[in-house]
């Protein structure tokens, strides 16, 4: 079993849901990213999603677009991001790390060399936003051969036939995008999400996380009642954008509040 599978299975046994925070690597500068990853763990992160900066983040809203721009101003590359994970692993062997980004940096590096290097660095999963199952089979096979879980998105528009195609390639967990839109939008509709998750769970053999539009502890608690994992991104990136003063502490404190709310969900 992979580190992601172990982590999610252990949580499921306790009747708890995974808290998965997202930050963009290299934002606001590369030197601080590993420290922030540890701060996320201190706040109760079960898995970390680490954004790989890209020049053309088509699926992201303004908040994460600006994070990408700040990281790219420091030339943060996919190789740097992998090196950050290796640095993080020196003091944390337990928390799974998933890289999330766009296809072209992986294309440029080359699937095999990337996957081998990333696995050696301690990367556990890869989510390529703009690579649907139709195009992802070659990459997914290379990732699996290198013990990296390929993570796939599902959307409100995804029909059952596509869920089956996703289930065939995906491992680790599936990521349900709660709304039609870009990251950072704020109109998540809980009853719609619950309805769709029920369908997804019939067709997906792995845990399902929900992301997009989760901005506070209350929403996280509600989502935790219906999903296996809660992903929070833009809200955390806004903390980063607010400046470096007390940033690690602020991230930890925010996540602790979310964690506490999620853990009361099962009571």
């Amino acid at each position, binding site marked *: 079993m992979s580190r992601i599978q172990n982590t999610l299975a252990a949580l499921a046994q306790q009747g708890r849901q995974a808290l998965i925070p997202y930050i963009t690597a290299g934002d606001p500068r590369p030197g601080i990213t590993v420290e922030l990853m540890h701060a996320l763990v201190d706040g109760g992160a079960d898995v970390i999603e680490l954004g790989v900066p890209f020049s053309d983040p088509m699926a992201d809203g303004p908040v994460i677009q600006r994070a990408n*721009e700040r990281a790219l101003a420091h030339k943060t*590359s996919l190789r740097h991001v992998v090196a950050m994970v290796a640095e993080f692993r020196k003091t944390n062997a337990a928390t799974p790390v998933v890289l999330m980004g766009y296809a*072209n940096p992986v*294309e*440029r590096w080359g699937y095999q060399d990337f996957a081998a290097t990333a696995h050696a660095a301690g990367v556990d999963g890869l989510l390529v*936003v703009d690579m649907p199952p139709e195009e992802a089979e070659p990459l997914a096979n290379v990732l699996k051969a290198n013990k990296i879980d390929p993570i796939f998105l599902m959307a409100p*528009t995804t029909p059952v036939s596509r869920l089956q195609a996703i289930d065939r390639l995906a491992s680790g967990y599936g990521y349900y995008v709660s709304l039609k839109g870009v990251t950072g939008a704020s109109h998540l509709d809980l009853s719609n999400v619950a309805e769709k998750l029920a369908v997804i769970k019939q067709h997906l053999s792995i845990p399902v996380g929900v992301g997009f539009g989760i901005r506070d502890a209350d929403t996280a608690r509600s989502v935790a009642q219906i999903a296996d994992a809660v992903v929070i991104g833009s809200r955390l990136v806004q903390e980063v954008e607010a400046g470096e003063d007390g940033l690690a502490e602020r991230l930890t404190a925010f996540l602790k509040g979310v964690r506490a709310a999620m853990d009361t969900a099962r009571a």
Partner: protein
Amino acid sequence: MNDFLRYDQPDLQGHFGQFGGIYVAETLMPALDELRIEYEKAKADPAFMAEYHHELKHYVGRPSPIYHAQRWSELLGGAQIYLKREDLNHTGAHKVNNTIGQALLARRMGKKRVIAETGAGQHGVATATVAARYGLECVVYMGAEDVKRQSPNVFRMKLLGATVVPVESGSKTLKDAMNEAMRDWVTNVDSTYYIIGTCAGPHPYPKLVRDFQCVIGEEAKLQMPEMIGRQPDYVVACVGGGSNAIGIFHPYVPVEGVRLIGVEAGGDGVETGRHAAPLTANVGTGVLHGNRMYLMQDEDGQVADTHSVSAGLDYPGVGPEHCYLKDIHRAEYVAVTDSEAIAAFHDLSRFEGIIPALESSHALAHAAKLAKTLPKDQVILVNLSGRGDKDIPTMARLAGIEL
């Protein structure tokens, strides 16, 4: 034996060899499936195609004529240059061939709102035009940099009732406008049809845009024999994303003895790195805006900034079918610099009384160079993809003139 007689691209998943495909976020996949299925039905529906051709004839003014640029050819002293006059279309460029087709598709699919990206503004104008014609709400995304350098087209779009959204992210040009249009589409996918203007993007767009633009080459294939008794020796067209070029090239792909030359934007010169000529510069392949193509990028896979005096060619990638035609050696690709294109702009204006778009001026510049090296009985057909009215402020600025 002609290897290209059975040319049949793309495959069912939208691949032109290793290029093309569908690289988008999951949310858009069902919409692209729906578009693919609906387009195939429409193409097979005689009523739909009849309406498309009726609109091309009565609204656009097709067929566009072919004109022998006799005086300019004589001055150059070599091959004869003929111009396929897409500049005479309603809205002043080839773009409308495609926007009519896609607007009819949007209407057929029950979409009430259309969006588009635009560089020079020609596709934005063509989209705003058909949106007015068919009563559709229209939003056009345009890089803030391009809004500045193409102000007449911005105003035209507004006159036509469209909302123009300046895009401030990234390099503030065409690629950023396309990013923003994708973001709009993913948010409003139920109500909105995305009219992509070039032969790039996720499948089925490269095929669909090509099919709607092929009217250019299909007409030329009939017109040239009427005019000169045979097909041309060369067909030359400018290539940014590549829609006007694919429209005139594609029907000629199986025709033996016709050389196809795509002309990219060389900017300050390909050797300077400040250009928009991915095919000429031999850059690697990459994935952007939903498809795999030759893509200008740095060693980390970040998309490179491009440069061209012509906003419509200022794009780091190129449609997947051009990538494929290059790889199979059916088409050749070259670049001309900003200053060569500007010289051709002046030459055609002065010697033929036709003010060409700066985009098309790239094709003209290469045709002029090529003509000088050829005997007088050789024939070069240039796709004059658009007229240059929109470039008058740019040309005035370059000349230091305040209008």
